[in-house]
């Protein structure tokens, strides 16, 4: 596999290689070449199984990171292709033509992160969120707590105690914990 990685490096000018395990490597590549590389691995190197497509929101850098996980069943080897795309007007070339189930991953990413994959079938349809009119919920600026407070009612009967305050009430209710100060009117 070392050979393969070296060949890929020359062919695709990879920007980073991380050997995660003996049988698993992360390759980072520019957005323009990512689907080419995925296709090459499928068609010529026996990576016949598409494992998953995932996304990480690097909000500070203004980027989304897409990772295409591929598996070579004969050699029991995994490669994940990573690529960074702009967060603003996020869009990526669709790869649903390579494996049917990529359609589903791309619909999910469209809904959860707002990334568009033009030409992906049913890309505009609801995936699991129905009647959603907030920003995509997996984007890091989405305030989950504020949303849940606005949307759901609090559970009845819940009450919590702060350990330090509770201990004061139980163990030393009269002890002074601040200094009493009398000052002249200024």
């Amino acid at each position, binding site marked *: 596999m070392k050979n393969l990685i070296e060949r890929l490096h020359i062919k695709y000018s990879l920007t980073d290689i991380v050997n995660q395990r003996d049988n698993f490597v992360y390759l980072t590549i520019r957005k323009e070449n990512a689907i080419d590389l995925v296709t090459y691995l499928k068609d010529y190197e026996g990576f016949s199984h598409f494992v998953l497509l995932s996304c990480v929101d690097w909000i500070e850098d203004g980027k989304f990171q897409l990772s295409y996980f591929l598996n070579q069943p004969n050699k029991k080897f995994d490669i994940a292709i990573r690529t960074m795309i702009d967060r603003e007007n996020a869009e990526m070339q669709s790869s649903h033509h390579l494996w049917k189930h990529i359609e589903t991953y791309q619909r999910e990413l469209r809904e959860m992160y707002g990334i568009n994959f033009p030409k992906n079938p049913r890309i505009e349809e*609801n995936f699991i969120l129905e*009647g959603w009119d907030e920003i995509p919920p997996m984007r890091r600026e989405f305030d989950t707590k504020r949303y849940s407070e606005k949307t759901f009612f609090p559970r009845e009967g819940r009450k919590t105690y702060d350990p330090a305050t509770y201990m004061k009430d*139980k163990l030393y209710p009269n002890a002074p914990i601040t200094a009493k100060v009398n000052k002249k009117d200024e």
Partner: protein
Amino acid sequence: MGKLKDILSPFTAWGGVIKDPVTIKNPIGRPAAPRYRGFHKNEVDVCIGCGSCEAICENEAIDLVPVEGIKAKDGDSGLRPMVDYGRCCWCALCVDVCTTGSLTLSDEYTWVSENADEFRYIPGLDKKDWDKNENGWKKPEPNYEFYSLDRVKMPELHAQERGQSFIEFITGYSKQQAELEADRCVECGICTSACPAHMGIPEYIKAIRNNDLEEGLRILYETNPLPEICGRICTHKCESVCTMGHKGDPISIRWLKRYIADQNPSEKYKEILNAENLVDNGKKIAIIGAGPAGLSTAYYLKLMGYQCTIFEKLPEAGGMMRYGIPEYRLPYDQIDKDVNYILSLGVEIKYNVNIGTDITLEDLGKDFDAVFAGTGLHLGRSTRVPGSDNKNVYFATDLLREISLGQEVPLTEKIVVIGGGNVAMDITRSLARLQNIKYGKVDILATCLESEDIMPADREEVVEAREELAIVDPGWGPKEIETENEKIKGLHVVKCLSVFDENKAFNPKFDEENKKFFVADMIVESIGQGMDLSYLSDEFKENLRFSNRGRIEVDDYFQSGIDWLFVGGDIIQGSDVIHGIANGHKAAIGIDNFLMKK
């Protein structure tokens, strides 16, 4: 009115009814993966209710609640986590942050109940089928911690270097070290209750993290006007209950306090602490003894508007902090920094005044609105074994005081100290230094009844004494001091089997056959201290209440049987600086309440 989308969306869902389901049947009965994150388990006896699980929970799924059979006590809030599975997302951050390791997740993931309220329960207390499941998510060990288990090491002088002089050997944290150490605190506040003064410990540690040391100083002074002193020599009961101590080192709370005090220059204290323009209410309070209790009383009374005069028997302020604790642990200029700030507010100290002879307590009662006595435990106690009346047998308290006064103390080449407390270690280490200076070598041995594991001295004192080449040989009972022509030959001891009986009363048992002889030409006794109440006239004593053990009885606010006399500090609570400070604060409140009612 809802939006059109809201109204239509339920119908779009119905569209799925005619399609084949894509899910498979719930595989009930299939065991979960070994590290599956299922329902919570909690070892309630190990859990101390610190609330870190609640604090980290992103979903607010955890409440800390009081439970039957577990009471709040030092080191345990008495609360336990209750999980709401309507909110839990099984992320296991609660397990990963748990400081005691009590909280884990079982591998059970199926649970059916028609009662929604059952899905809120207290793991470990509300019995569940999965309580005994071995598999599930536990914090992986080792090296999987959200915080460092090791405290930042305090820089100190090497034993060989520090043993040559009385220079302070703990050098203090740098900014980077203090912030790193402060970063280990989970802010649970379990420590606050164990501190006799109930200092705002998590708050001042947070101030260090925020690099707001002025705020840190303000928090310290709310409950403790002697932070330079306590930052060095406090018995740090807080650290013994610190939740981080369950799996690693407790936070260095004492050194962090010192860091705050050290970093704030004394000339800025008044401004930082906003102590200008204090009221003068015209009422006068006399305080006997400028030790921790007296200074604390004076400080908090002064803030409230009282004129405070401290009467001190010795030539300088500090009491046992100056005349009992050696300079290498607590340098005099640091005592002065704390004391001078209190004086700068207008508290007055009259030095070299002996109550009972120079002025009587009755006179103080007449001249002042109230009196606080914090006169401390300055008298030595004798073992009273044969030979202990020899002139070369000394009390540790006397020698420590003489060293602080700059007097020449008796010294020989071969010394034995009897006692295993902090005072015994103080005199052992002080005399070792003097031997080093005078003879160029150390030959001193400390022995005590208690075996190594139950020695009353702080562990680090024993370790450091040995580093400084003193011998500590615990677990022996003194039998006789052998003398010849008035000269000491040494100390005969027998093995001490136990110190306390089954009723926890002091009742040592010995193995008389197992003997030892420690050669010495000078012996120091350090087996406890007594109080000198000679300033109380007999007539006066009749109006006071005393306990069976001879202590003056006081109420919760340290008011004695004579209403204008308040008593606190070591003579009430036993020797401990931070207790004295706490007593002084509370007595100040007591005096204020008493005089406001008058």
